[in-house]
């Protein structure tokens, strides 16, 4: 019974989305220029399908892997295409989704009309459904030609298979595997007062806004705002941004951004040696990500906290499974053994802040042991946006981390030996001293005081600031000016799907950075200032030079983007 009710509720929501969009005219749209093409990520695909068709639609199959570039999947999305095997998967998924949408269980609520005969084509009914669903999937109204083509596919297949719904399902399948759906296509026209840039059209703005704030396609009010040109005025844009920032769906957007920034996609395939670390499991890895995301959402959205406090907060969220890993007793209600529990680390605890959580220390480790170098590199690159140079060739690593060497029991001792080599010293001195501060957490994130029988010394320094342990490191990250500059940079890059130019980095730190500081490093304020800025919607005009071969321009363009 409960299941049925849930189905009705979700399906009704979906029907509401589909039904009310019928009023939209399927007017032709003549975009001037396609300036961006970002493949929707796995999470976005899931979210859109849930938003449009409800959560009862199951997604079978696998996705083509997303790719990370410049530290973000959001940037990689601007560079990937769909490979042959990837398209097979999208096709499987599209057919499965379409079959569920038109099946007997869902069709009464999903499809806003009934055909004259279930065995024959009905162009009017098909058109009604396809135009409304197409508008949400393509994130703009279908052109008349697109709609006519979709209706024709539905009609042809309905005739061939003597089944109206099979035809409708086929047309829907086509939409779900079309480039229009799988890629966020941005169109732009020249900006009135700015010859060097193009200005995104209303629907492209709506998509940028919606994927930034909700990690999903625009909802109907946003599409309507785009249709009526509201997003071209700063008032109209601010109205929509404020509406979306006030929505509970903002949480999905914030989660998506931090999952991307913190590299959580790398958890897929993360393994720890089961003989050495029998407690670690895929379930713990999933809980570890959720722990950090809950901490972030609670502090930044629910408490309206200071971004920097993420690195010092004593508040976290645990499951009994995580409690076992961290050796913290977690009690849950009898009927909810896997429930999440809010937890305050005691004043004298070793942990505080998200860098002492398994989502950081376990992710940036090797399968069989911790790695101060990898952790130090991640701290620099992920949280401070500082690039650590790649290691040189022809380096002799002999004796460095031989854990059986009686003279070098701890990682600190081994790395100190390594740093004595001049070719290694330059980079290791910016990674190791901060990574070593996290050595009290083994490769799974569990606390340890000793390594190979010798006590661990977690003291160190970062950019001249000395600290005595992981909590001290968290405080130093909290106080480091690069920390807030980094999240501004990352969020803008994430939002636009490309690395910022040097000029943009300067202006974003000046404009967004100052506003962020003034707000007390309130994430919502930062999101708002980006979402309502001109910079967010500006697109550089691509230069096409006749004197350079197309192939090398192509490579350059790839680099620039």
């Amino acid at each position, binding site marked *: 019974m409960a299941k049925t009710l849930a189905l009705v509720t979700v399906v009704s929501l979906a029907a509401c989305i589909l039904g009310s969009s019928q009023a939209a005219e399927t007017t032709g749209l003549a975009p*001037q*220029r*396609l*300036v961006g*093409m970002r493949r929707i990520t796995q999470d976005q695909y899931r979210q859109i399908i849930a938003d449009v068709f409800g959560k009862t639609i199951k997604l079978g199959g696998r996705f083509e*892997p997303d*790719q990370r570039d410049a530290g973000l999947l959001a940037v990689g999305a601007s560079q990937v*295409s*769909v*490979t*042959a*095997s*990837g*398209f*097979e998967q999208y*096709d499987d998924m599209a057919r499965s989704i379409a079959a569920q949408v038109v099946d007997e269980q869902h069709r009464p609520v999903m499809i806003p009309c009934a055909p004259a005969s279930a065995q024959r084509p009905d162009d009017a009914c098909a058109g009604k459904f396809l135009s409304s669903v197409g508008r949400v999937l393509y994130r703009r109204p279908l052109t008349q030609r*697109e709609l006519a*083509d*979709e209706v*024709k*596919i539905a009609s*042809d*297949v309905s005739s*061939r*298979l003597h089944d109206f719904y099979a035809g409708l399902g*086929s047309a829907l399948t*086509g939409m779900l595997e*079309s*480039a*229009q759906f799988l*890629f966020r296509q941005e*169109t732009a026209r020249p900006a009135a007062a700015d010859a060097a840039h193009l200005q995104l059209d209303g629907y492209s703005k709506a998509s940028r806004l919606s994927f930034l704030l909700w990690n999903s396609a625009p909802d109907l009010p946003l599409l309507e705002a785009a249709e009526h040109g509201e997003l071209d005025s700063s008032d109209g844009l601010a109205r929509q941004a404020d509406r979306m920032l006030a929505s509970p769906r903002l949480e999905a957007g914030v989660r998506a951004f931090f999952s991307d920034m913190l590299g959580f996609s790398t958890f897929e*395939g993360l*393994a720890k*040696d*089961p*003989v050495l670390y029998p407690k670690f499991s895929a379930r713990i890895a999933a809980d570890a990500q959720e722990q950090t995301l809950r901490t972030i959402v609670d502090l930044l959205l629910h408490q309206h906290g200071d971004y920097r406090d993420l690195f010092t907060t004593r508040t976290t969220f645990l499951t009994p499974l995580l409690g076992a890993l961290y050796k913290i007793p977690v009690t849950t209600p009898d009927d909810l053994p896997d429930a999440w529990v809010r937890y305050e680390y005691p004043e004298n605890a070793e942990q505080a802040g998200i860098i002492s959580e398994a989502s950081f220390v376990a992710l940036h480790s*090797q*399968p*069989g*042991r911790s790695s101060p170098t990898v952790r130090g590199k991640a701290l620099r690159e992920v949280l401070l946006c500082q690039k650590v140079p*790649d290691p*040189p*060739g*022809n*380096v*002799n*690593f002999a*004796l460095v*981390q*031989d*854990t059986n060497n009686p003279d070098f029991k701890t990682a600190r001792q081994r790395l100190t030996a390594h740093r004595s080599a001049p070719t290694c010293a330059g980079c290791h001195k910016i990674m190791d001293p901060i990574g070593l501060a996290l050595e009290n957490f083994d490769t799974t994130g569990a606390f340890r005081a000793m390594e190979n029988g010798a006590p661990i010394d977690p003291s160190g320094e970062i950019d001249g600031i000395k600290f005595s342990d992981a909590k001290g490191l968290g405080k130093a990250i909290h106080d480091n000016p690069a920390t807030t500059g980094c999240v501004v940079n990352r969020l803008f890059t994430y939002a636009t799907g490309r690395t910022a130019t040097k000029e943009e980095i300067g202006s974003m730190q000046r404009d967004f950075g100052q506003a962020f500081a003034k707000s007390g490093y309130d994430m919502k304020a930062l999101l708002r200032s980006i979402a309502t800025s001109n910079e967010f919607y500006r697109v550089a005009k*691509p230069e*096409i030079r006749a004197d350079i071969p*197309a192939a090398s321009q*192509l490579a350059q*363009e*790839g*680099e620039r*983007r």
Partner: protein
Amino acid sequence: MNLAARLGRRRVLRGMLGGAAVTVGMPFLDCFLDTNGTALADGTQLPTIFATWFFGCGLNPGRWEPKTAGKLVDLGPELEPLRPYMSKVNVLSGFKVHLDGKPALPHITGRIAVSTGVVPAAGQKTALPSVDTIIADQIGNKTRFRSIEVSCIGSRNSESVRAGNIMNPSEVSPAALYTRIFGPDFRDPNAADFVPDPKVMARQSVLSGVKDQLTDLQQMIGAADKVRLEEYLTSVRQLEQQLDLELQKPEPLKACSIPQKPTGELTPSAEVDTMHTNHKLFVQLIANALACGQTRVANIALTEGLSTLRRSGNAVIHHTHTHEEPVDPKLGYQPNVAWFVGNVMTAMAEMIATFDGLKEGDRSLLDRMLVWVSTETGYAKVHSTDNIPALTVGGANGRVRTGQHIQTAGDPITRVGLTVQQAMGVPVNSWGGDSMSTSRTITEILA
């Protein structure tokens, strides 16, 4: 001309597919194969097949190269597991990546240079295709799958990259690969009855519509995105081709047998025993897929360039050992690294045994294969890009002479990629960039 084209079969079937499924009883067309099953009856050889087999972290200099050049009469100790197959392999030593002053990013530069022929400049990426995709575009357009990529350690990455940095993702689960190849969409070439499915034609209409809607986009798109959109279009066409083939009675292939769905698959990981188990399942499936004409290009990655292979219960991975393990003064090499290399070479021998063990008449599948075995590093301990090991396996339908050791003193490794392309019929005379540019084929191994 293929059978379907000769008989105009597809046209016939299209006409019959107005309504319910029809069964087209086909005689078992043995007459179209020669009596041995090694060629089609018109004398055409069964098609030549290309595969890559990649492993990371190289081999130890002085421990793998045969001592003598020319006919392969001896093997370095690290190649010892290949001894039973000496007549079927070529060992290529002394080839290197010429950096031309560009940075050697450990495990990355070598990999890109070996597979695309170009060393990326500092801070740049190459947008060039890897050799296997050039070959797949040449020979993979008539099969269900243009190519198949697998990783034996659970990484969805692959070494197969199409123009514009578009990477073909790897399958990590043998069971998933089985379903993809031999699942419901598989048409048994040797089945007596052939039942075309009218739903397949509905799917064709859908794909045709998807393609039609790209026309407007293609006209308003910039150069970099155009490549990506064209790649998407190529992928749509590949699926269309799969559907076309589903509507045709395939040519019979005597050696094609449908394997059982693999069991015993282990959750993919870089733990050595798991790697062996999944590698074995993968190569068997690929052998069956090749014998059944489902693809002509397969890319098998045993590990990634930075090899994460590990021994159960041991904290240190292969890659870390290559750098940190001291050279044993008595043995003269790193014993743990040698243990991992031994496992890599055992897996390679397993691969050869599987392809060679699938008999097609009096020959083996391997006889019509060219397998390019590559790695990204010479001496991994120091991230060297000199003396990067390379091997070829299989006679490529008589196009490649095997059983030789080709020894050079620092020739660009692009000579190997060029030779492989020419052996597979790619019309290319020179390949590679800057000092890696070469037009010198390894003529000794080309028949």
